[in-house]
């Protein structure tokens, strides 16, 4: 059974307005890295909030680890399984020292202190922030803050982390740090990653990409499959990574280039 299943899910914020999600069917296996792309207002963030019971479907159902999100007795367990990281790092950090911030979640779960100590150390190490455990979070860069926010989630030992545009407010260095961290957690720790982004180039390392448009899933496929449909994506107001677009234009000029996704692959295939 899949880790996360959405079956015929609709969601409306307000009966007067068009539904934010319409008939979503999606299953995500444990260990997958799934990127979700779509224009502003396509329903990506609403979808994310259904996964750890920040919202409940208006119709259909969401099943996480075999548990239905409608059953209130499952909520705590589901929220432990699926952690959320949001766009603005400043809104997610609450404590005055990095390690206290990371300990906040497990403390709320009533976990004994020695176990918390161990989890905090491991979580900070996993995001490469162990050196900063005594720092006040407000002295960190945006990328470092996001990594601390991610450590706070990891300390809850979730099976899945949902990240809603975690790099939108970061500079290029911070973006690289966060992307490297979530790929590491996926590959080395086996954590399922659901990553929502407007940066197309951040999705090329995903196992699957889900393309959303106007509250529905428009396409699901591997990055190669999705980015082959350049014109379709542009119609949805989306884009493809620059290297993919350049390869596409060069092919039109008669230059033979295999399927590529990154700048490295493009350069290697040309010369």
């Amino acid at each position, binding site marked *: 059974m899949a880790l996360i299943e959405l079956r015929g899910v609709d969601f409306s914020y307000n009966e007067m307005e068009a539904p934010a999600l319409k008939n979503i069917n999606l299953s995500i296996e444990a260990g997958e890295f799934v990127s979700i792309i779509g*224009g502003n207002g396509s329903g990506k963030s609403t979808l994310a909030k259904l996964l750890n019971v920040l919202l409940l479907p208006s119709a259909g159902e969401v099943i996480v680890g075999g548990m239905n999100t409608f059953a209130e007795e499952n909520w705590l367990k589901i929220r432990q399984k699926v952690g959320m990281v949001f766009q603005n790092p400043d809104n997610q950090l609450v404590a005055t020292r990095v390690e206290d911030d990371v300990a906040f979640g497990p403390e709320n779960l009533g976990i004994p202190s020695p176990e918390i100590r161990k989890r905090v150390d491991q979580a900070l190490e996993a995001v490469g922030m162990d050196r900063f455990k005594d720092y006040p979070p407000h002295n960190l*860069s945006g990328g470092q803050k996001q990594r601390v926010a991610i450590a706070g989630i990891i300390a809850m030992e979730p099976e899945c982390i949902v990240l809603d545009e975690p790099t939108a*407010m970061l500079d290029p260095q911070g973006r690289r740090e966060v992307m490297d961290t979530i790929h590491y957690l996926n590959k080395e720790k086996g954590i399922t990653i659901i990553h929502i982004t407007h940066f197309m180039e951040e999705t090329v390392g995903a196992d699957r990409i889900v393309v959303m448009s106007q509250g529905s899933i428009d396409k699901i496929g591997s990055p190669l499959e999705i980015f082959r449909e350049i014109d379709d994506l542009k119609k949805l*107001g989306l884009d493809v990574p*620059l290297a993919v677009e*350049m390869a596409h234009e060069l092919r039109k*000029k008669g*230059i033979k280039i295999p399927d590529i996704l990154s*700048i490295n692959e493009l350069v290697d295939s040309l*010369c």
Partner: protein
Amino acid sequence: MLIELKNVSHIYDDGQVTEALRNINLTIREREFIGLVGHTGSGKSTLVQLLNGLIKPSTGTITIDGLNITEGKTSLLGIRRKIGLVFQYPEHQLFEETIYGDVAFGPRNLQLEEEEVEIRVREALELVGLDYEEFKDRSPFNLSGGQQRKVAIAGVLAMKPEVLILDEPSAGLDPQGRQQLINLLEYLYEEKGMTIILVSHRMEEIARLSNRVIVMSEGEIIFDDRPEKVFSEVERIRQLGLDLPEITEILWRLNKKGLQVRTDLFSLTEAVEEISKELRGVEPC
């Protein structure tokens, strides 16, 4: 309008002393499109706030059209009318019940007749691509994030500034929203004759739009030159923790591998033309 900074330094002292700007000398002329780039903490945002009179420098002088704005008596309202600043995530500062009210807030503060205010609101909304009749009475809080950003920018444009400063205006926008913003900036620069200062981490935006790029690091100006000059300093740009425009990155790497392509092109069409011309001319390497 002419903006001049002479020996400007700025120190923040909130228990711990940070020198945000060190001895900046800078002249900004009319009808420039300046791309301002630098790592987080390089001093960009401090510089931008000084230009708009939001903060005063610790030492040095800033003059706008010969008027010293660092002196106590200078009217800051006058400066802010001439120099519009679009903050990061400006939509967080929307507060009125209607979109009309929000965009009209600045012009009303200028004590303009309501008739003139209405003309300005209409113009500003149309500039950012929001239909006046459709949007004027709606609440800004029921809009998508991208539309809210447009309303916030319209609020600054309604002041009819001569200089427009934007701090990461495309952060968090989807690709379509980003493209619309780029088109707007091009229009304001080319058709409206505005001077624009764009702060962005997106080097491809900087390279495409600006005719002068200023690179900052640790409170100092490291480069101040045409984009093709600045982005030819590949090693230094990387050392500063900055990216190259992706097109430059590709051309530069191909060039290093022996393909004789120019590296000073910033448009996809030109780059594709250049690569295919070279590849046709030579044996594959």
